[in-house]
């Protein structure tokens, strides 16, 4: 309990410094906000009036204190650019978009990375492991704007490539299951229930493969349909797919590498050996016994990634023209010289990040009984 309190106490100076940094950062920006409000041709006394109105003539610390006082009560000020709206409402309109993209990306990355990392660890040093390790190092090295453009090139401009690639991959998978089943049948190693599972697997892989192939959606080059729009969930997912995949590509690599190394050390443990000695099949050991103790740092990393992505989707939002936090900061804030918007948005992002990190840090100890002591 003491460590929890200490961690929370440590949050306070960090948050203060973060807010002061945000405040200070925009002091450096050249250009007079009064000009941004009135345009370049207003009379001098008008500029003076606006500066006074915005509090630009007060000393720095006083402005910071009054700003912070407002912030704590949830008032992030009004946007300078017309039409004036509250920054809080702007952020509330943008945050869900970024949050959704980040969440979808993390789920996608986990879905791909967990089996990838698991089998890499299980067959460490094998051809599969080395291929996976090559692919993940490549994915980590692709800058996000490059992978976004690459995905646009494939999925928007040349959609037959991923479409037929998908068809070939799923059909090959289904064929492999069929051949495997036939071989087992011929060797009379298949019981009734297992045969059913094999057939079910075949049907699912082939069915999903064909279904997606024939109902291949047109992914848009740009734009976003909100979840709450009339167009509905499918439209929302269709517009969110490519941006989320862009982000997921990097995260897949990060997650898979981490899970692989954690899993490899778990697989050295005695309880795995005893499970093996009892004759448990490898697949069952991996999923039932080894995955849980190996996944703690993965969960924390996913939590940290969520916090990081809320501020880290600028590039993707710019390329795909999404109305998220990153574009709010760059387009409406930095380009339009609307510094209250930038301040508010950066502050919200940084606070979410810091708080999320602390929560993750705390939950780490709660989740994993092995490290409850000795930490803190």
């Amino acid at each position, binding site marked *: 309990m003491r460590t929890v309190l200490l961690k929370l106490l440590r949050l306070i100076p960090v948050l203060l410094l973060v807010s002061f940094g945000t405040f200070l950062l925009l002091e450096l920006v050249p250009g007079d906000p009064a000009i941004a409000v009135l345009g370049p041709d207003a009379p001098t006394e008008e500029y003076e009036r606006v500066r006074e109105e915005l509090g630009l003539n007060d000393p720095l610390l006083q402005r910071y204190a009054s700003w912070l006082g407002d912030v704590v009560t949830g008032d992030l000020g009004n946007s300078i650019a017309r039409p004036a709206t509250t920054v809080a409402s702007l952020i509330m309109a943008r945050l869900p978009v970024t949050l959704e993209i980040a969440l979808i990306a993390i789920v996608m990355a986990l879905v791909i990375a967990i089996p990838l990392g698991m089998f890499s660890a299980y067959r460490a040093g094998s051809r599969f492991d080395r291929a996976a390790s090559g692919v993940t*190092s490549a994915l980590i090295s692709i800058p996000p*704007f490059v992978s976004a*453009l690459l995905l646009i090139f494939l999925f928007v401009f040349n959609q037959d490539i991923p479409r037929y690639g998908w068809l070939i991959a799923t059909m090959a998978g289904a064929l492999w299951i069929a051949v495997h089943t036939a071989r087992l049948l011929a060797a009379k190693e298949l019981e009734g229930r297992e045969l059913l599972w094999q057939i079910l697997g075949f049907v699912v892989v082939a069915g999903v493969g064909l279904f997606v192939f024939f109902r291949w959606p047109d992914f848009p080059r740009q734009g976003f349909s909100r979840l709450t729009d009339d167009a509905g969930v499918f439209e929302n997912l269709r517009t969110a797919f490519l941006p989320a995949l862009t982000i997921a590509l990097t995260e897949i690599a990060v997650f898979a590498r981490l899970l692989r190394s954690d899993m490899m050390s778990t697989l050295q443990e005695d309880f795995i050996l005893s499970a093996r000695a009892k004759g448990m099949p490898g697949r069952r050991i991996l999923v039932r016994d080894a995955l849980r103790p190996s996944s703690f740092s993965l969960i924390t990393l996913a939590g940290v990634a969520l916090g990081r992505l809320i501020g880290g989707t600028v590039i993707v939002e710019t390329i795909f023209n999404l109305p998220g936090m990153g574009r709010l900061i760059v387009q409406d804030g930095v380009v339009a010289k609307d510094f209250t918007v930038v301040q508010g948005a950066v502050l919200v992002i940084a606070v979410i*990040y810091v708080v999320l990190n602390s929560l993750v840090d705390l939950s780490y100890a709660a989740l994993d009984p092995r490290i409850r002591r000795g930490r803190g």
Partner: protein
Amino acid sequence: MAVVDVDLPEPVAEPSAASGEPRAGGVGRGVALMVVGIAVIWVTLDVLIDVSALIRVPVVLAGFAVFYVGLDQLLKRLVGPRVETDLWLSLFWVGLVVFLAIIADLLPLREAQDASKTFTEPILARPDLFSAHPLGTDSFGLDLLGGVIYGARLSLQISFGAVTIGLLVGGLIGVCAGYFRGKLDGAVGILTDSALAFPPLILLIALMVALEPTVPNLVVALALLGIPTYIRLGRANTLALAQREFVTAARSMGAKSGRIVLRELVPNVALPLLSYAFIIVAVLIVAEGSLSFLGLSIPRPKPTWGNMINAGSEDFDKHPHLVFVPAGVMFLTVFALNRIGDKARKIWDPREAKV
């Protein structure tokens, strides 16, 4: 000789580390595979120049894969089974990029910066390795090879400069925090925590709006980005060292704190910190590229990898080479730096080596 410029295989076929087991096949087979690989690449790039790029690109990649396997077998046979071919190729690639960036002014490159001098050049020429424009030209007739090399110059200057500053400033602060502990350590810890709480790209964007996009300003902005990381690394490495006997011995001989930090701790922390420099350079190249891509770094007409990609992305459905040539070079450089950095950390970072 232009083939050499792209002499790194696509990583899809790359195994990560030496597996240790000796490979079958001898010198002859390795050389044969390399020749086949180069022949495939040459035929696709020179003879089959009119075939669709959608076919030629995969074929060229396959050619590189074959070449790589051949080289791998050859080196394993000649040097030993533990040789890491991909590491050597990475070193070769980074060396090549650095070398070309240094001697860029001496190379017989076509005009890559000044669009007023390219009226006679073909515009939007497709990459053709054996023509005057090996990597093609853009919509102003500017040479992409030249752009990529001059872009390398800027990218490398900026990121190496930023890493050097970050390393010196951040490393020193970190060592002091780790050695003196106490209030200084606490204050530094809170400062780094706060600095790391800002989304890095957003911090950079805000800084670059305030600063003119010049090379020194970019160096400073990117250095600021890296300093908190270096403080943490320096501190963590110092904590382990400060308890060691040689520090106690120095202190008992009457050495002042300044001397202990500079003469005893810094030399020992330097190498582990330096081993992270490669990876941070890679991160900074991507960060600078992102800024360039958003139009907040060195502006056109000076080519950087990022602003070339940005300029090309406008109608890259028709002219994909405008994006994929600089993007490919950037990717290979980042990939190679990451690979070298991983290896460097394994060798020099004691914390990594123990794991």
